[in-house]
């Protein structure tokens, strides 16, 4: 069943939804990256909640003008308008009052959502039975998706991607270093506004599929996931688009494969699964990699300290050190050094002495800065330099018993 769904074999509606969700995921993932890099991820939460009054108002206006009130395009226009107003309120609050951005986000989010709910109850009383499913914009609903809806979503997604392609350089610059961007003459405020406009567009396009509460997840999670895999901003954007698209596609497929699997939440949960896997497994920034790195470091410290102790004839009580030395064939179980162990220990002690010279001599300042107690001196100095230090140290003077 899942295989059928993934291969788009589950019928017309499921295919439409899958294509729409994939496009939406790609657009949301790449847009969200800039928001995330600008450290304003939660602004999207305010924008998405601020769409609700627009949906309600657009419905009322369309009914008042004698229309059906459920035209997706009209509702999208209304939601874009109110999201824009919410965004302006947010910007005004942070710019002209002492409130921090998080407070402004919370205020705009809750107040606009409250207004939206008031409007929804007004609609409920307006004409019974007519409101039919404006609530579905809260959590999305794909059951009755039409070809025209899918076309609107595809068009919106394509538009967003084109704009990202056009604006990617200034947006990256502003995200990383707004002061520098301003000094370069980039209109930071306008780029910020454009970025938010893109977020708004994604939100409005995504209302139908994932709903306004969960669209935030599609904007934030793919970007955070992609950030684990690379340090280059252009690749983060691409990967975020990829993860977003994947989450949309797989999520839509799973949701079509069985009843009672709402599309929006499933897409979000697939995105979260990708995130969790990345958090654990990503090379470099992942948890597993960090643990391995820590263990390797621990081993090096213990081996080094153990060798120094062997060289100076001190007994070793630390169990881990002893085990590591024994496993490397440098010491016996009772803590006595083997032949190889003695050689390595003598070398370690000599290196320590060499480092002492390096750190005391200003001529080696650059090399001394790299001293951390573990670094092999051969990786820092040339053979000639080491020979020169050895000359200063003199020959072996015997190890204290």
């Amino acid at each position, binding site marked *: 069943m899942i295989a059928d769904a993934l291969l788009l074999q589950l019928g017309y509606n499921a295919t439409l939804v899958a294509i729409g969700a994939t496009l939406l995921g790609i657009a949301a993932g790449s847009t969200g990256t800039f928001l*995330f890099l600008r*450290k*304003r*991820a*939660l602004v*999207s*939460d305010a924008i998405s909640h601020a769409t609700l009054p627009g949906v309600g108002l657009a419905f009322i206006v369309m009914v008042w003008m004698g229309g059906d009130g459920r035209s997706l395009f009209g509702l999208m226009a209304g939601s874009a308008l109110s999201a824009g107003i919410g965004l302006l309120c947010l910007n005004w*609050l942070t710019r*002209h*009052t*002492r*409130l*921090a951005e*998080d*407070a*402004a*986000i*919370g*205020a705009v*989010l*809750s*107040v*606009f*959502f*409250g*207004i*939206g*709910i*008031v409007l*929804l*109850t*007004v609609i*409920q*009383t307006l004409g019974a039975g007519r409101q039919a499913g404006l609530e579905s914009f*809260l*959590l999305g609903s794909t059951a009755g998706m039409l070809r025209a809806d899918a076309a609107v979503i595809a068009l919106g997604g394509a538009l967003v991607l084109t704009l990202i392609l056009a604006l990617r350089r200034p947006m990256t610059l502003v995200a990383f270093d707004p002061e520098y961007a301003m000094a370069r003459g980039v209109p930071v405020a306008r780029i910020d506004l454009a970025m938010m406009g893109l977020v708004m567009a994604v939100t409005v396009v995504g209302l139908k599929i994932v709903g306004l*509460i*969960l669209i*935030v*997840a599609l904007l*934030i*999670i793919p*970007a*955070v996931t992609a*950030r684990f895999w690379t340090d280059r901003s252009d690749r983060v954007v691409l990967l975020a688009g990829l993860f977003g698209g994947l989450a949309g596609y797989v999520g839509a497929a799973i949701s079509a494969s069985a009843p*009672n*699997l*709402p599309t*929006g*939440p*499933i897409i*979000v*949960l697939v*995105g*979260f699964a990708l*995130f969790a896997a990345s*958090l654990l497994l990503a090379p470099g*920034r992942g*948890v597993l990699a*960090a643990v391995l790195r820590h263990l390797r470091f621990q081993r090096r410290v213990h081996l080094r300290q153990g060798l120094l102790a062997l060289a100076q004839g001190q007994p070793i009580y630390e169990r881990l050190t002893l085990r590591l030395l024994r496993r490397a064939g440098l010491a016996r179980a009772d803590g006595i050094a083997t032949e190889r162990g003695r050689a390595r220990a003598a070398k370690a002690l000599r290196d320590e002495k060499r480092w002492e010279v390096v750190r005391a001599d200003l001529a080696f300042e650059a090399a001394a800065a790299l001293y951390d107690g573990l670094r092999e001196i051969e990786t820092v100095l040339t053979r000639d330099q080491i020979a020169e230090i050895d000359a200063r140290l003199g020959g072996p003077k015997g190890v204290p018993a």
Partner: protein
Amino acid sequence: MSGAEFVPLSLPPLLIGIFAAVACALPGNFLLLRRQALIGDAISHVVLPGIVVAFLVTGVISTWPMMLGAAGAAVLAVVLIEAIRRLGRIEPGAAMGVVFTSMFAAGVLLLEQSDTSSVHLDVEHALYGNLESLIWLDATGWASLWDIEALRYLPPELPRMAATLVVVALFTAFFWRPLKLSTFDEGFARTLGIRTGALGMALVIVAAVAAVAAFDAVGSIIVIAMFICPPAAARLMTNRLERQIGWSVLFAVLAAVLGYVLAGYGPLWLGGRDAVSAAGMIATVSGVILALAALFGPCRTRVGAPGQG
């Protein structure tokens, strides 16, 4: 409107609204100053999976398991946010966004999967509550307030919300000095021996308790609005924390009363027939108060109060 109509139909929801608003606004003041204002937002989203899980485990809609489930979910969310922030070295806002949206999605999915059609549990209810339905049918007038028999049938949300407010107020009063110190100067507070980490966690937990209790009574939209709007408006009125708290309580009460009245009677005045959502209206009124404070508040700009240079 006579007492015979007011006491059973309007007094309990009004009081519940006021208690909920104040209970959320009190910790909201500190969260706002600590730049953690969106914790309230996150908590109110994750309450849904907590309640659904509690329902699935116990199989009944009853208050205490659900409160426990919601509180557990709130604590789990805070721990997860902190874990993701540290393990993944991600900025707190994004970590929060990842956690609360995913948990909310899980809650919706669980709700759809489980057979909850027979019971009153749905997403809309979780979002905007049902303040208007918390009526006290046994009251006949003002005299009922002294009638033990009638008082026994008060909506249970009312005493629960009142108790929550007392807990929150006691916490604020008891830890006033350490809270104030650690909010404004965490380093200094630590040198005085105040355990700022534990205190911060306690504040979040108290906020979660307030949010969960208020959520049960009035829905999550009021919770988010009351955590942020009254304290934010109060912040624009004064530079002193004591007065800010006073203002925020005043604004919270004002928003609850005005919002409830406007929702109940506003449409009638405008010629409509039915009331609109009280929760939504209370949030709207709190937004209007914030807008007025942002336009005219004496301390609204970043440099400080006028006249102080």
